C-alpha cells in the first residue's frame, strides 16, 4: 500500500496545472466571465477544447491501442481536480466519458454533453448529447460559465445509466479542486488584508475558518482519491457527497473571509460557489448520495 501519488501522477498533475495556467489563466477566465457570450449564449472555446484533446484530457483513459493515454480513474481524477481548480468551463465530464464511443470526442474535435437528472449543460454548444434531451428548455443559469437546459420530466428512475458512476467521481474531483483553490485564496487574502493594524489572518476567527476549509478539503481529497482507486459505486457516492460539501462550504467561507470584496463580481469566489452549486445538482445529489450510502450499511 502506498496511497501517495506516484511520480508519474505528480508529473501529470503538474502538467495539467501548467497547461491550464497557460491556456486558461485568470485573465482568460475573467474574459470569459465578462465577455459578451455569457449566460445562455455562452460559447465554448473550441480551440481550447481541441488543445485539451491534444493534451489527452479526454483520451486519458482510452487504451493506447485506441489512440488513448491508457491511464485509469486515479489519473483522470487528478486531471479533473485541476480543471475544478481552474474553473475550466465546458461539458468536460461528458466529453471525457464519450471518448470511447463518440468519434471525435477523444481528440476534442467534437463536444459531447449529457443529460444528468433534469439538467443538461452546454446543450447549444454540444455536437452530441448522451441521453435524451428532447423538449429541453433553456434556463437562466446561475453560473455565468455554465449554460443550462432543463428537460422536464427527465429525472430518471433509481438506477442511473452506467456512465453515472464515473461521472459522479469526476464531478467530485472537480469539486475537490475548487475546494482546494478557495482554501488557498482565503489563506492568501487573510495574510494580506489588514484591518485593525494587522493581517486579518492573525485573528483566530479567520484562522479557524481557514482551518475548517483545509480539513474539509483534505477529507474530501482522501475520499475522492480512495474512490478513484477502488472505483466502487458507494464509495464514489460518498466522495461526491463530501466533495460537494467541501466545495460549497469552502466557497462560502472564502467569501466570508474576503468580506465585502468577496461579494463583488470581480472576485473569483462567486464563480467557485456558483459552479459548486451546479455540480452539486449532478447525480448523486446530497440526498441521493446519503440514501445510497445508507442502503449500503449492512
Amino acid at each position, binding site marked *: *500500500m*502506498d*496511497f*501517495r*501519488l*506516484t511520480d508519474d*501522477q505528480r508529473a501529470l498533475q503538474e502538467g495539467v496545472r501548467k497547461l491550464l495556467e497557460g491556456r486558461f489563466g485568470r485573465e482568460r477566465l475573467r474574459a470569459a466571465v465578462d465577455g459578451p457570450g455569457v449566460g445562455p449564449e455562452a460559447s465554448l472555446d473550441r480551440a481550447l477544447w481541441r488543445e485539451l484533446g491534444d493534451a489527452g484530457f479526454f483520451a486519458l483513459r482510452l487504451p493506447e491501442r485506441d489512440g488513448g493515454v491508457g491511464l485509469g480513474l*486515479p489519473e483522470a481524477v487528478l486531471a479533473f481536480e485541476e480543471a475544478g481548480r481552474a474553473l475550466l468551463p465546458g461539458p468536460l465530464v461528458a466529453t471525457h466519458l464519450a471518448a470511447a464511443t463518440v468519434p471525435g470526442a477523444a481528440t476534442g474535435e467534437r463536444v459531447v454533453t449529457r443529460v444528468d437528472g433534469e439538467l443538461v449543460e452546454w446543450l447549444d454548444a454540444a455536437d452530441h448529447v448522451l441521453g435524451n434531451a428532447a423538449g429541453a428548455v433553456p434556463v437562466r443559469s446561475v453560473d455565468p460559465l455554465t449554460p443550462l437546459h432543463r428537460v422536464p420530466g427527465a429525472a430518471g428512475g433509481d438506477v442511473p445509466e452506467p456512465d453515472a458512476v464515473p461521472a459522479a467521481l469526476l464531478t467530485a474531483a472537480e469539486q475537490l479542486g475548487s475546494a482546494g483553490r478557495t*482554501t488557498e485564496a482565503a*489563506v492568501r487574502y*487573510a*495574510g494580506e488584508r489588514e484591518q485593525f493594524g*494587522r*493581517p486579518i*489572518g*492573525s*485573528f*483566530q476567527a*479567520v*484562522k*479557524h475558518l*481557514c*482551518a*475548517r476549509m*483545509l*480539513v474539509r478539503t*483534505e*477529507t*474530501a*481529497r*482522501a*475520499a475522492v*482519491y*480512495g474512490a*478513484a*482507486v*477502488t472505483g466502487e459505486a*458507494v*464509495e464514489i*457516492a*460518498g*466522495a461526491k*457527497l*463530501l466533495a460537494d460539501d467541501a466545495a460549497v462550504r469552502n466557497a462560502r467561507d472564502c467569501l466570508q473571509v474576503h468580506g465585502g470584496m468577496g461579494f463583488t463580481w470581480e472576485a473569483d469566489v462567486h464563480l467557485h460557489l456558483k459552479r459548486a452549486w451546479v455540480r452539486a445538482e449532478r447525480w448523486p445529489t446530497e*440526498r441521493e*448520495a*446519503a*440514501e*445510497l*450510502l*445508507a*442502503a*449500503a*450499511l*449492512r
Partner: protein
Amino acid sequence: MDLTYTEEEEEFRARLRAWLAATLPGLPPRPDPRDWPGRRAYDTAWQRRLYDAGYAGLHWPADAGGHGATPTQHLIFLEETELAGAPYVGANFVGLLHAGPTIAAEGTRAQCSRWLPPILRGDEIWCQGFSEPDAGSDLASLRTRAVRDGDAYVVTGSKIWTSHAEVADWCELLVRTRPVSADVPGHRGITWLALPMNAPGVSVRPLRTLAGTTEFAEMFLDEVRVPAAHRVGEENDGWRVTMVTLSFERGTAFVGEVVACRRTLRALAEAARGNGRWDDQEVRRTLGRLNAEFTALWRLTQWNVSEAQRAGGVPGNSGSVFKLRYSHARQELYDAAARVLGPGGLDLSHDWTADRLSSLSYTIAAGTSQIQRNIVAERVLGLPKGR
C-alpha cells in the same frame, strides 16, 4: 495511489489473523471495568501473549527490542486486532506508545535495557504525568517543581488526567527545573523523569468523569525523591525529549477506533432497521452521511500511514487535520445513535449511551479542537500567529 497490500503485507495479515483466531477463544473473561488490578492483570497478560508470539513492540526499532515494522504493518496489526475483537492495548498504552519510544529515542543504553524489556513483556506498566490542573492546553506552563538535591530530584506538585495511575509501576513525568522568567520561556525549563509510582510522597486519587467512571486519576507529589539517573535527556530539555515521540506518530493513532466506529455504524443501521427508525429519512440519511465520513477517515488514515511509511513520521500537522475531523465525526456518530435509540438513548444500559458520554472528551483531550485549528492555521497554512 495504491491501496493494494504487498505480498509480504498480506502474509503478515494472514499469519496475524490465524494467530488471533487460535488465541482469542482461550482468553479469560474481561474484568469488570472498575476492577483496576484485574484490568492490569488482563491487559498485561495479553501483552505477554503478544510478546511470546512476536508481536510486542511491533513498530519499535529492532535495537529497542521491537520488530521495526513499517507503518503499514502496524496499521494492519491494529486493524486486524480490532476486527477480531482482541483486547485493547489498555494499561500498556503509555509504555508501548509513548514512554517506551521516548526512552528508545533519547535514553541511555542502561535506561533502555532497564525499562524497555519489561514494557514489551507486560511486566511493568507506565502512566503519564504531563497535564496539570492549571496546565491543560498550555502544557508548557506546568508548575510541578523538581529541585536537584545530590543524586536526586525532589519533586512537588500535582498532575491530572493520569490513566492507570492506581496500578502503574512508572510514570513519565514532566517537571519544571528552571523557573519561567523573561529570558526563559515556559517550555525551556522542563525535564523528563521516570518516576517510580511506589516512591514515598506519591499519592493517587481517582478522578470521576461525567460518564460516572474513574478512567483517570489525579496524582499528588509531595517532596518525592526521584534519582537523577531516572532523567531521560538533559536537564531542562524535557520539552524537546517529549516532542520527539509526538512527532514519531505514524498516522496509526486512531486505526482501531476508526475500525470500531465503522462497526458501530453498521450496528446502528441494523438497530434502526429493527426498531422502525430506518423509515425516518433524516435518521437514515444521517447514517448514510456518516458512512461517507468514516470511509473517508479510513482513507485519510491510509494516506497518513503512506506518508509516514515513505517520509518517516507524519508531521503532527496531518494528525491535527485528522483529529479535528475524527473527533467531531465520532461525536456525531453517538448523536446519531441517540436518534436511532429514541427514548432508549437516555438508558445507560445501552453501550452507545455510555459511549456518547465518553465521546464528549474527544474535542477536548490531547489538544482541544480550538488548539488543533490554531495548529492547522499556523503550521500548515502559514497564517500569522495571533497576538
